[in-house]
Each structure stands twice: as C-alpha cells, then as structure tokens.
C-alpha cells in the first residue's frame, strides 16, 4: 500500500471547506482530487469520496436539497452502491440525507442561532471504517459551525438505527436540538457516513484538537482498502 489512495472531494457552488478537507486528507496520506459538481464520473481509481462543508446553492429550498441532484451525485451514488466509502461533513451530511443515502434530515438549530464552537462528541460505535481508530478514544473534541444541524428522524427509524449501531456519534450535551444528541450517522452498509462536526478542522493540536485526524485517517485506510478490492 505504498501509493496514496485517491480521495475525491466534490466541490459544489458554495462549498467552502473543500480545500481544508483536501489539505487534511493530503496530510494524512491520501491523494486528494477536487471534483467539480458537474462532473459525471469520479476520477479513475477513486478510493473514497468526501462531500465537504459549506453552503451549496446558498442553502436554497432546504440545505443540501439542490446539491443532492448534481451530476456528480449520480456518480457518488453509484460509488456508494458499489461499497465505496463516502463521508459527508456538515453541508455534505445534509446533502447525503437529501440524496437519501443517509437516514433522517438536518433541520434549523432549535435555538435559531448559528453555533460555532468546539464540542465534545462520544463515539457510539468504533466498529465502522470511519471510527475504528477511535477505539482508545471514546470522546472526541471537534469544532461545529452550522445553523441547520438538528438531525431528525421519526421515532421508529431512530430506535432502529440506534439498535443497529448506525448512530455513530453523539454530542455529550445539547448543541442544536438534534434528536438524541445525534452528531453523526452511518448507512446500513456501513460505508456512508455523515457528521455535522468538522474533522478536517481538527487535524493538528495547533488547531485546538487533532481528534478529527482519527476519523479522516480511518477514511484514508478505507480508501486504500477499497482501491485494492475494486481492482
């Protein structure tokens, strides 16, 4: 596994954490490639996909709704259906929910305020590709910055997701009114994850925390494995 696995970072009009994500992935051993949302295919040999944070299409209609219909999202859907690892961060999480690649939806924060701070999240399931490096670190410090991060699903879905271990991250307090303090979920196949906190902004102690590096390094590992199995 000497070659750096390619991680595609999809750029939508209004994405603003795309370069930060690419930088962090590069620092963690991946070969990040920015992919414009109008592209119909992912780069050859893509091992993982990141949908970055931002305000795609100015959050028109509902955050993530317009971006979920971009041509690149058809490619991401095919990649996910083939088992490829996909991580949506903040606006990326909203896009994955609107694309119905993840359960639930992100609603306006209950306090109607934009939250911008470091928060602590508990890792509820270390048995996923994204969290397996967190086995010795049950609580992570990660920054959040969002106005629409209150995750919601109906009660039946929520209970089922919790029972299956699909609720991967929970805030240790009430950050935005999210149901069950959910901060991140994974799909049933375990290869698509979304989270509101920003791991790409927490990859160096100089930035306040390096805990985000654990999640992104998990993604880079999964990318390398996917490249090998897809050949």
């Amino acid at each position, binding site marked *: 596994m000497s070659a750096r696995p390619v991680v595609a970072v999809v750029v939508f009009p209004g994405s603003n954490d795309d370069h930060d994500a690419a930088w962090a992935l590069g620092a963690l051993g991946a070969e990040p490639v920015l992919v414009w949302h109008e592209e119909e295919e992912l780069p050859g040999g893509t091992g993982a996909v990141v949908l970055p944070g931002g305000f795609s299409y100015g959050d028109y209609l509902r955050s993530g709704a317009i971006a979920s219909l971009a041509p690149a999202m058809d490619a991401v859907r095919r990649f996910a259906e083939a088992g490829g690892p996909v991580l949506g961060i903040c606006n990326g999480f909203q896009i994955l929910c609107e694309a119905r690649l993840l359960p639930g*939806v992100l*609603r*306006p*924060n*209950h*306090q*109607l305020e934009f939250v911008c701070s470091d928060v602590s999240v508990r890792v509820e399931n270390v048995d996923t590709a994204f969290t397996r490096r967190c086995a010795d670190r049950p609580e992570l410090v990660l920054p959040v910055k969002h106005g629409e991060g209150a995750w*919601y*699903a*109906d009660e039946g879905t929520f209970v089922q997701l919790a029972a299956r271990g699909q609720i991967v991250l929970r805030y240790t307090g009430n950050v935005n009114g999210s149901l069950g303090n959910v901060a991140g979920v994974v799909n049933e196949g375990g290869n698509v994850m979304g989270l509101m906190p920003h791991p790409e902004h927490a990859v160096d102690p100089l930035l306040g925390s390096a805990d985000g590096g654990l999640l992104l390094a998990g993604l880079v590992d999964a990318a390398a494995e996917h490249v090998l199995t897809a050949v």
Partner: protein
Amino acid sequence: MRATVVVRPKQGILDPQGEAVQGSLRKLGFDVSGVRVGRVIDLELAGDPRDPRAELERMCSELLANPLIESVEIQVGER
C-alpha cells in the same frame, strides 16, 4: 398552466422559526397562540400536462418538499 405548492412543517415537528415569529408578535401586543412558517412555490407548467396534479406530486417528492418533515398542498390552475 399555473400551479401553487404550499409547503408546511408537518404537525408535531418543532418549528423554531414559527416560535420566534410568535414571540415577536406577542411583543408587539398581538394575542397569538401558535405560528407555523412554511413556504409558497408558484409554478408555471409549460405545455399542457395530461395529469398536472400527478406531475406536481412528483415534483414535491423529488425536490420541493422533504416528506420526513414537511406536508404539501397542491393547487392547480388557481391564483
């Protein structure tokens, strides 16, 4: 052909925007016990679809509303 789609937060879904508006109306002295904020989408359908209501229902489920949290009311040919 003209059509209008009214999108509302579903019953039982917390609507922080509506609550904030209600608080402000009360500050102005209005006796209001509930406010919900949704949105109105006016459309012009090109051509003459055979079943405009079915077409609009598809638009709602594919983009205009999120059925998890929103309900829709479709009006065809009015306004």
